[in-house]
């Protein structure tokens, strides 16, 4: 068989139900609403890094589960999150993305907790505590963050709106196979180490961690090899590791610099992507310049990697958004190594569990129970 007619195109891929996803997950407004209620209003969501609120009263705003939110440093290491709506008209109190907050009186508080300087909130009073929710998903960063005499700080923040469903962006992080798309990864990452040296781990609650990646920065013209002295504690300069936390946050380390991504749905077809770069607080101007350069080479708005992910997410939207593409296949199995799709499968298994709909047939009531049985990783 070569090309397929309409009927063949409409047949689900001949792989297990856990190994493909229906295009409806990207475009059904009812699914979008269910995601807000059953996922975003229930999970812990990264709000801001402590360095963005350096003093008592400093706040940072963000959007979560369609709510205008803020998080404020109360005293010392205590942070509090609120829904930024007050009064009968629900007016927003805070004028900008960051500043000093005089009072939070009248705002509805939400549960707030911090780990390693990353401040999280949840709108669900019944949610398990943050440590239980994260489990051991961030263990690959333990050496980077724990037992350090210094702290990290955000030196870079940018936002972009991509014309795609939020999951299409998150997939670019969960999907190792797409490194073929990135010129810079084809040059620096794929030849750096054996595929079998990589390790993809699935954690509870849909989180994933990926380690064992390396980069030969000297392989890309205009990049320089990163030296041992430039590396962050706990990392070698050629190290790359990352943890996509379900559903919307990713912490990424690339030897000398850190990035945190957050994905916020604005509608079934529009997504706000926020990206932070982190370095060491109090480091020398020369070290900071080095870290900014390393960050921007890959991850800046004009960097070599991140804009390509936006093309990918929007290219998927063009096919899924109006129903031309009907399924995507996430069927690579390399035993948790190489370019295994198990990270994508872990994401969609958790998505299916929380929504009560299998991602392979999310609008088909008859298939729900079958898919839930078969869809587990």
């Amino acid at each position, binding site marked *: 068989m070569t090309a397929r007619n309409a009927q063949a195109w409409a047949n689900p891929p001949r792989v297990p139900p856990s190994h493909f996803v229906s295009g409806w997950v990207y475009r059904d407004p009812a699914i979008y609403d269910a995601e807000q209620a059953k996922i975003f209003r229930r999970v812990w969501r990264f709000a801001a890094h402590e360095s963005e609120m350096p003093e008592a009263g400093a706040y940072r705003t963000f959007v979560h589960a369609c709510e205008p939110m803020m998080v404020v440093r109360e005293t010392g290491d205590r942070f509090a999150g609120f829904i930024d709506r007050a009064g009968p008209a629900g007016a927003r109190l805070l004028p900008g993305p960051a500043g000093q907050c005089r009072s939070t009186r009248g705002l509805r508080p939400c549960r707030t907790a911090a780990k390693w300087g990353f401040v999280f909130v949840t709108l669900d009073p019944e949610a398990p505590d943050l440590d239980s929710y994260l489990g051991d998903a961030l263990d690959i960063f333990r050496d980077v963050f724990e037992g350090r005499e210094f702290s990290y700080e955000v030196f870079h923040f940018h936002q972009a709106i991509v014309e795609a469903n939020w999951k299409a962006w998150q997939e670019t992080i969960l999907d190792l196979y797409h490194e073929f798309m990135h010129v810079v990864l084809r040059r620096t990452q794929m030849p750096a180490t054996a595929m079998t040296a990589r390790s993809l781990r699935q954690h509870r609650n849909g989180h994933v961690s990926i380690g064992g990646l390396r980069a030969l920065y000297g392989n890309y013209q205009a990049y320089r090899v990163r030296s041992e002295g430039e590396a962050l504690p706990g990392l070698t300069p050629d190290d790359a590791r990352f943890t996509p936390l379900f559903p919307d946050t990713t912490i990424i380390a690339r030897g000398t610099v850190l990035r945190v991504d957050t994905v916020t749905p604005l509608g079934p077809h529009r997504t706000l992507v926020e990206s932070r770069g982190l370095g060491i607080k109090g480091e020398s101007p020369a070290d900071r310049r080095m870290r900014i350069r390393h960050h921007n080479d890959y991850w800046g708005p004009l960097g070599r990697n991140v804009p390509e992910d936006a093309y990918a997410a929007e290219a998927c939207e*063009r096919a899924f958004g109006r129903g031309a593409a009907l399924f995507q296949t996430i069927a690579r199995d390399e035993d948790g190594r190489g370019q295994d799709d198990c990270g994508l499968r872990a994401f969609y298994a958790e998505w299916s569990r929380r929504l009560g709909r299998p991602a392979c047939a999310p609008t088909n009531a008859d298939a729900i129970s079958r898919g839930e049985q078969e869809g587990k990783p």
Partner: protein
Amino acid sequence: MSARAAEAWSKPPAVPETHYVSGLVYSDESVFADEKRRIFDRTWHLACHESEVPEPYDFRTVDYVGTPLLVVRGADRRIRTFFNVCPHRGAKIVHELSGNTKRFTCFYHLWSFDAVGACTDIPRQEGYQTVGLKKDDVGLREVRTEIHVGLVFVNLDDQATPLGQYLGKALDAFEGPMTAGKGLEVFHYNRAIIQSNWKAWQETNLDVYHEFMHVLLRRTQMTAAPLEDRKVTVHPNGHTSIAGLRAKYEYYKGMQSRDDRLALPTLRADDFIFGTVFPHVAVLARGTTMRIDVVTPLDAHRTLIEWRGLGVRGDSAEDRQARVRHHNQYWGPFGRNVPEDAYAAEAAEMGFGRGAARFQVIARDEGGSGQDDGMLRAFYGEWSRRTGRPAANPSNAPMA
């Protein structure tokens, strides 16, 4: 009665139901959803002219009501069309408008496909051994493709009637101009998005009466031949054509009469014929040159219009220059005619889009001649049949 109060304004016009159209056909989202499903997913759509893919491995991409399409001429010279969608993770594969390649590679994961839609390469395919996924399982989705008088039509419905049967005799008048001798080729392509429902544009191609709007037509067309010479023909399936129009180009300052030497085969230089293919194609021949419109809804209130200009394949440079000038005088983006149609369509949107206008009247009857509204009625007759909603009252329960 002079001006009308709200109640009177809401009453349907006092003409037969076939002779007016409810404003809901332009603004109701459920009507638009039905149009997509019952009209655009089932009718033949003009993708391009065959001259746009003249050589083996030439391709042209098209967006058809949200479905990205890829038109390719194969090594066997046959033109095929596929969804421009990677079966792996759903990404749009080809992003260029046109080009030539033997291999279409999706930029996301580098899966490759050939000109007959077969998957030819999956990088590190061993990752699929466990589930047994093979290249043979993941070909592109092929779309039915047929050609008539050089026009490449596609249909998303594999069960649709063949193109020849669908068109009937609707394009017969164009067979001579488009296929005699060396045939035609596209020399002009432009597109624009207008802020109106798609039907408001197509109406400008179905409505002879609105020639009053066009300064150029008032000067060159209305005075050139008696209105009784015109003949409107309504074809099965909602297609229409009109003959008997002429133009005296020299009546407009700055234009000159056209030389019969440049006339397209079987036409006179002052001839003007046009036809529409339901739902959204118009073919116009103005003696020495041709224009083809394709109207594609983006949503209920935004429409993509694509215009093509055609001349004779193998024209001398001088003749081509003359044809381009003739085309652009009326139909270029800065021509004297087409921009006025955009004003008309957008003005109608301003009335209908939010419900201020309630009905439009298409009740002119001149015995199929003059400025008869017969073409508009034919369009809405077919529209009603296909959507199952009478255009005069589309919010009624669908017809059986």
